[in-house]
């Protein structure tokens, strides 16, 4: 009985992420080590998901000190980064492996 309860709780714990709301999705594409768009508008005060698609063959690290997020996206792969709710303002981000070209800003308004 105790084992069943433990298993049930474990299943609930792992099912919850699927149920948890992570807001609207906004896409960022990496190509030729540049982000597109390099200025992404999202609603302030709402949790949103950034879907970062890397169309290059090489990996990149989506990094934002302002958003307190960093996550590696392999070449040809995509990642999901949940941010917010954000105050209105601008939040810079870079591709850490190619910081000279891969940069942009999330604008919450």
């Amino acid at each position, binding site marked *: 009985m105790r084992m069943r309860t433990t298993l049930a709780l474990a299943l609930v714990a792992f099912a919850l992420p699927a149920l948890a709301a*992570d807001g609207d999705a906004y896409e960022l594409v990496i190509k030729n080590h540049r982000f597109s768009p390099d200025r992404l508008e999202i609603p302030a005060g709402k949790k949103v998901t950034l879907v970062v698609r890397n169309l290059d063959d090489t990996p990149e690290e989506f990094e934002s*000190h302002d958003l307190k997020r960093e996550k590696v996206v*392999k070449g040809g792969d995509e990642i*999901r980064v949940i941010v917010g709710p954000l105050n209105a303002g601008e939040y810079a981000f870079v591709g*850490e492996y190619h910081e000279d070209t891969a940069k942009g800003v999330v604008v919450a308004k």
Partner: protein
Amino acid sequence: MKFSLLPAALALAATAILAAASGVRAEFKVRSPVVEKDELSLEQVGSAGYSRSDRRSNELSVVHELEYGVNDHLLIELEGEWAREAGPGSDRRFKATTLGGMIAPFAQGELWLDGAFWIEYGRVNATTDPDTVKFGPVLQKSLGPTTVTGNFYMEKQVGIHSSGYPVATYGAQWRYDWLKELAPAIEVFGQLGDVNGMNNPRNQQHRVGPVLTGTLGVGRAGEFKYELGYLAGLTNLTADHTVKWKAEYEIAF
């Protein structure tokens, strides 16, 4: 007569607690619940404690760690700890090998509070000491320009030489995310004693102090992370002064 025995009884109790506490690893590290898939990190986490009292001085702990993010929800870690117990005449020796893992069921930012569950098994090198199991929640919350992280563990001796109740420990960091390269923080660490007697402050260890943290990126070659801090002991069982450090190299595959 009754009162004249009190100091002796307290000294005896303190000695017993110190002896019992020797099985609990000195780890001045606050874990984050965020797991990075395919990220490998090599760390050295160290601390050195000094006191006016020789009996509580000269302790040292150096832990070398290898961590890997298996996926976005599971991190595994292998540690080796070299330590020198407090007190005169102690030698530095290999103390324990530890295998740990962290399960983070939720993505960062998915819930109001980021959380994970840490569990580890420590195999002590000395045949006369007990092994240990440690487990508990690892929590983190971003608050404006700051980040608060808290680790709350229960540690239990296991195996042939085990004794006593589980011991409650904690570590927490309140960091001001000023710059990526330099983020000052306040850290607290403590040991509340075993669950049967944690209401007595004399049985507890608490430390608090400032820590400098930061990350230095080297592009595709990875990142270096550092921490350097000073912790002041707040109870009689705690070293008066503790210097702590962490040097970490991270690379993603």
